[in-house]
């Protein structure tokens, strides 16, 4: 940015114009993200309408506990980042730093738990392109999942389609979250260096809009994927 007058960039006439542009820009960007996810949500919905029984069967095998804890993490992080905006606006740098760090850490906790979840998915034979797909015996059953599905009339092929959606949707979401964590950490560094001053709160506001969107997308992904089938007490254990 050139020719700074406080937070004002040189090509803008006044600060109001700049803030208006930044906010509108972020909302437009969110529109693109919504359309991006809409494509895969639509595809998922089509297949879920075609293969409800198979999707319900494999959805019941997903770890709804981890998903629940992760949802709490993200919702809380949305709260902390909102409070961070206020802290920035009022010049409370100590609170700003803590809240930004908390947001980033909650996001990181989500990713850590997700990584753990992916690892257990692999060990449970729920990775459709791996060689041990369906060969594990999971909680609540007495034979490998492929046999259970055979018995229940669930098609392993359609299970693979569900899992493809599971990994691609949570994977894309995870990538978006990692980018968000990166931006929040960058803002944290600026807060530490005291260059995130009250007149530059709009940067934080636009970041929080992005963060809320990532959270909102998770709130759609979670029920679609994890709650498509019945869950029993058996899946509460890790």
């Amino acid at each position: 940015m050139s020719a700074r007058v406080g937070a004002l960039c040189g090509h803008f006439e006044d600060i109001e114009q700049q803030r208006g542009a930044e906010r509108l820009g972020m909302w437009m960007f969110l529109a693109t993200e919504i359309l991006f996810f809409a494509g895969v949500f639509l595809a998922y919905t089509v297949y879920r309408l075609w293969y409800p029984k198979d999707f319900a069967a494999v959805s019941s095998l997903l770890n709804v506990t981890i998903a629940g804890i992760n949802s709490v993490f993200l919702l809380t992080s949305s709260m902390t980042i909102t409070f961070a905006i206020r802290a920035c606006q009022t010049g409370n740098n100590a609170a700003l730093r803590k809240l930004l760090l908390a947001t980033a850490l909650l996001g990181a906790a989500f990713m850590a738990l997700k990584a753990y979840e992916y690892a257990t998915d692999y060990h449970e034979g729920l990775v459709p392109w791996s060689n041990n797909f369906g060969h594990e015996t999971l909680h609540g059953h007495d034979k490998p999942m492929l046999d259970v599905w055979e018995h229940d009339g669930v098609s392993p092929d359609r299970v693979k389609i569900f899992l493809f959606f599971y990994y691609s949707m949570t994977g894309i979401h995870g990538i978006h979250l990692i980018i968000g964590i990166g931006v929040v950490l960058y803002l944290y560094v600026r807060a530490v260096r005291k260059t995130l001053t009250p007149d530059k709160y709009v940067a934080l506001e636009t970041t929080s809009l992005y963060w809320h969107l990532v959270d909102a997308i998770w709130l759609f992904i979670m029920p679609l994927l994890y709650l498509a089938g019945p869950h029993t007490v058996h899946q509460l254990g890790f």
Partner: protein
Amino acid sequence: MSTDYGHTAKSGASLDHHDSHPHGHAPSYLHDGYGWRSWLFTVDHKRIGIMYLVMILAFFLVGGVLAGLVRFNLVSPTGALVDNDTYNKLFTAHGVVMLFFVLIPSIPGVMGNFFVPIMIGAKDMAFPKLNLASWYVWMAGSGFAVWAILAGGIDTGWTLYPPYSSRSSHSNVVPGAMGVFVAGFSSIMTGLNIIITVHRMRAPGMTWGRLPLFIWATYATSLIQVLATPVLAIAVFLLMIETATGWTGNPVGIFDPAIGGDPILFQHLFWFYSHPAVYIMILPGMGVISEILTCFSRKNIFGYQAIAWSSVGIAVVGFIVWAHHMFVAGISYYAALLFSLLSMLVAVPSAIKVFNWTSTLYRGSITFQAPMVFALGFMVLFTIGGVTGLFLATLGTDIHLHDTYFVVAHFHFVMVGGMVLAFMAALHFWWPKMTGVMYSDFWSRTAAITIIIGYILTFMPQFYLGYHGMPRRYPNYPPEFRVFNVLSTAGYTVQLAGFLMSASYLLVSLFNGKKAGPNPWGATGLEWAIPSPPITHNFDKTPVVVAAPYEYSLNLTQTGEKADVR
């Protein structure tokens, strides 16, 4: 006809406090810093526009060479140059390069970036750094595409349909698709920038109703870029994952019929973007035509509201017609009915524009410099392209014409006869403003006519071929189609001559061209009220707009000065 390019005339150049000789005044954007760093790290929208221009021309050259190889191979029914596999890779590369690396970024990336801020009276785009980033992202995308080509090519066609692309092709589908994916982000960034700029950075007095039609067109284009491109991104992303799982030995994919997936779903997701994409390609060109026809007939545009709203109408309705690419793909009869009907609706705004442009010429005072020749060529060729679209939107005839050379001819008419000609028109119109020099009037008009004639010779025979059933993407064909294929290839050489001519005189002008003043064409837009080339911040003082665009009949520029009417 007067060829004084307004160097001495001062009327209409009220904001021209600096001429292009920097004697202690602010330097032009070309001279504001030298060296590769000042270009590669610039945030000046004009320099970024020039960087886009250089790369667009480079990619156009690559795409044109690929086209030549395709056409020359088709001279013989058994393939004159290359084997089938190589041919398939050539036409795929031609499509990918021309669509994603030339047509889509062309006018928005070059003239959009350069002129949108100036035409609305702003100092730069809303997000200059995002603008620079969009260029780099585009380059990154092209890096992937080049990698795919150098690694042996990709042979799926630019449409990437599974299951062929994911399970059967075994060519460089992932890097090729990655190139498209990444380039898409550049398109989104440019579109977003333009939308915010037009919304928030208009100069005082520049109301929506006074915006030049080029801005309306580019704005509508940007809406499509922002909303449609993400859907291509997800389609291509899912395809890439599906293809990659094939490498593990346990292929999984949602488009793979072997496990209950549906390849038609990919087609829906793909065309949901790719149909609006063709409107991304043509709308900016239509905006340019409005600018040029008014200037070179010295008349108001006929039906400003109609043309402005039709741009928005094309953008909106363009989103709901995608399945007209799939009438024989296995969609239901009722879906086909719906999409055919909607496709008829989207044809109406384009027709409205053509009628309005024609009426603009009525009782004008018309001159025929190169921009006008290109614009008139656009009128002829785009009309043919547009009406041949009707054959394809009509269900009965589409059965016969789908996937034949009729389709190839149709889309080349709108994309080359339409968009490329519009790009050339824009380039020739704004060249003096961007570079500060003027090119040869004689050679530019000759080149324009050559290109138009070459174009007609290349693509008219293809309508015949398509109606007779010659399928597209065929390196081998029955011998009775040979004559028309040879004619078509002959046309290519004529076009090639025309484009080389253009490249030559434009290049020569950079070294030897007459210096151009601020308003060589005597046009009314804000961009003609500043020096040629402009200073970095475009305007010394924020301009105040008092008039609608195109008030040639009143001899009035948008800032209230006399238009330089010669």
